[in-house]
């Protein structure tokens, strides 16, 4: 597969991309852009600040302000040098902007730390969108977006063999055929190809839970996505919307009351909170994570959890915790599941980020090599992009060290989480930082302990 060209610079494309980004500004984004007082209170909250002070949220987000000033503000357009208002002037600067934009996990720690509620991560997402339009997007990310939008992932043997093997494994686990694409089911389980790749056991465990609870459920026979919507990670709103709409149409055809997810990363927040905006209507179903489903059934006396004694802790994915309010619910379930459950030091609204979200862990070299092996292809990347990827991986391990340290401090042997990106990052980073720990999806901890009451 040919890589994206990181060496060229097309002025017309850059200008066009800048215009299109400005067109995406809504009142909330306007607030983020205009009301920053440059106090830098946000910076130490950011996992990438540990890499260098230029990676503080406000400094990274400033690139969006430069771009907007250069398009819409009067004085800054007359005196760009005085007001820092410009788009990148050459390939080198474009690459520098990419380096900064891909040092953000969109974790939202800057958002809750800023005295003015400014979410620099969302601004950086727009910068990524700008960069994508100029052609600066990591090759592997672009490949995933293209495959997801076109549906061509289903033509890749390695992917489909893996998907089928996970489904077979699940069938074996429940001892019966899976009720695939069953119209009129009350629950639709919606896993992704990324889960099959990184956390296949989570899919098997989720299916076990649905079966044990005796629910009327189904799931797609096709993975429907790589990890919808991958486009969002490159700030490509159009690609993201196209995939989400396609999956939404499938769900409407099935007609469930609930869509259940085991991935509590950005796919969950997208379906739970962004779906009405993307599809332009209120969905006729509720979107829940397994944690919500199980807790509701346990609290209603319809299911129970047998307590064990594993030394387990909970890493709260930024999306599921800070951006979906499920902070105490997973901890509650895990404390029912093990008398040796312990919370991490930063548990709560300010839970530390793993450092690899927002595509970072999914585009670094070890992941690229893994994907290459799985699909039997080699991705060619330019020297410039290779440098970018090597440095990104190095920086990711620095950004994730705080998380690894607090896991080490907890002395837990198992880290339960719920986001494919978090699990992948903590696995990669714990190896680098010499921590021997098993990292699993929370459904894997719960599957064997749950029983219908």
């Amino acid at each position, binding site marked *: 597969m040919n890589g994206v060209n990181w060496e060229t610079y097309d002025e017309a494309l850059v200008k066009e991309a800048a215009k299109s980004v400005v067109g995406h*500004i*809504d*009142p*909330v984004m*306007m*607030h983020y852009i*205009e*009301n*920053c*007082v*440059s*106090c*830098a*209170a946000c910076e*130490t*909250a950011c996992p990438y600040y540990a890499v260098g*002070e*230029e990676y*503080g949220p*406000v*400094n990274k*987000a*400033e690139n969006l302000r*430069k771009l907007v000033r250069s398009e819409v503000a009067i004085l800054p357009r007359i005196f760009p040098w*005085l*007001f*820092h208002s410009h788009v990148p002037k050459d390939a080198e600067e474009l690459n520098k902007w990419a380096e900064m934009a891909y040092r953000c996990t969109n974790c939202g720690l800057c*958002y*809750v*730390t*800023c*005295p*003015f*509620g*400014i979410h620099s991560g969302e601004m950086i997402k727009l910068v990524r969108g700008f960069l994508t339009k100029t052609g600066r997007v990591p090759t592997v990310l672009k490949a995933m977006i293209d495959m997801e939008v076109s549906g061509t992932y289903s033509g890749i043997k390695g992917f489909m063999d893996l998907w089928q093997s996970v489904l077979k494994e699940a069938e074996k686990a429940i001892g019966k055929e899976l009720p695939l694409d069953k119209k009129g089911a009350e629950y639709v389980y919606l896993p992704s190809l990324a889960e099959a790749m990184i956390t296949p056991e989570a899919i098997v465990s989720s299916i076990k839970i649905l079966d044990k609870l005796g629910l009327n459920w189904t799931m797609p026979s096709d993975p429907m996505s790589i990890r919808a919507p991958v486009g969002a990670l490159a700030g490509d709103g159009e690609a993201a919307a196209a995939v989400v709409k396609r999956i939404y149409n499938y769900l409407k055809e099935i007609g469930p009351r609930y869509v259940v997810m085991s991935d509590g990363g950005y796919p969950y927040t997208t379906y*739970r*909170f*962004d*779906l*009405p*905006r993307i599809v*332009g*209507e*209120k969905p006729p179903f*509720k979107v829940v994570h397994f944690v919500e489903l199980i807790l509701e059934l346990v609290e209603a006396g319809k299911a129970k959890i047998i307590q064990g004694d594993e030394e387990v802790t909970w890493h709260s994915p930024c999306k599921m*915790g*800070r*951006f*979906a*309010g499920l*902070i*105490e619910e997973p901890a509650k379930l895990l404390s029912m599941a093990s008398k040796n459950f312990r919370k991490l030091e930063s548990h*709560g*609204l*300010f839970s530390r980020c793993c450092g690899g979200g927002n595509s970072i862990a999914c585009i670094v070299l070890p992941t690229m090599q893994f994907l290459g092996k799985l699909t039997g292809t080699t991705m060619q990347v330019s020297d410039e992009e290779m440098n970018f990827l090597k440095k990104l991986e190095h920086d990711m391990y620095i950004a994730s060290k705080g998380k690894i340290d607090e896991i080490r401090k907890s002395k837990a042997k198992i880290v339960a989480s719920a986001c494919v990106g978090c699990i992948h990052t903590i696995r990669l980073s714990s190896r680098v930082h010499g921590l021997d720990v098993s990292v699993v999806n929370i459904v894997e901890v719960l599957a064997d302990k749950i029983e219908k009451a």
Partner: protein
Amino acid sequence: MDILDFAVYVAPPYVVAAFAFGATYRLLKYIFLWKRGPGPEPRKRGAGSLVKGLIMTFLNPIIESIRRKPHDFITGLVMLHILGVIPLIFLLDQHIAAFAYWFPPYALLAPLAIPLSFTTSALTVAAPFKPVSEMQWGFVNTIWGPLTVFLNGDVLAVLAMLGVAYKIGDKIVRRAHGLTHVRIGDFFDLGLLFTILLFGFMAAHHLPSGDIVTYRTVLGIHIVLAELLVALLPFTKFWHFVFGFWYGKLHEWYDLKYKRGVAE
């Protein structure tokens, strides 16, 4: 007409007009960019959780600042804001008198007035008799009592100037480190604030000399620059105090605590 006459009798309506124009412009932008569309079902949380969430939304940045950047907390928040410009602007006795001249109901804040100088404060505590005044209210007879030894224009202005100086120094260091989030407007705004504070302090102490012409000029410059700040307020980062802070925090509360159901 000297600069003081200009500041007190001529400039105010123009300042108000500039402020009103700027504020309207900035608010209208938000309204024009607004797009209606279907939203998600909010996660249901109790009223208690939402109220606690609202309080914590405002408190969290302060707690994080104490935890992560104590030097910024002391200089930026305590010295510059909480002890500096907020009480100075709104409660300094001379300011209450001036604002009440333009807007009479402001005189209601008179019982909270902070005396101008350290000497007056010291006398409040040490003098064996209460000062008598024929003016509308007694200048040092406020609810603050002995606290005025600290709560007075001299001490607070020095704290505020130190806070601003720290901020300017911090921005210079950041610029030197190549950080581009430090903007030209930051230097202009902080410079303007520092100059206003300095001229106010000088006027209060009849500096650089006690003659009436110098005094009126120094006080006039203090007021004109303060008026400039108000006129430019919607176009500068001082807007945070009128709008950005409140909108930002209320939006964050709505987004995270109300819509997404983050309970603290």
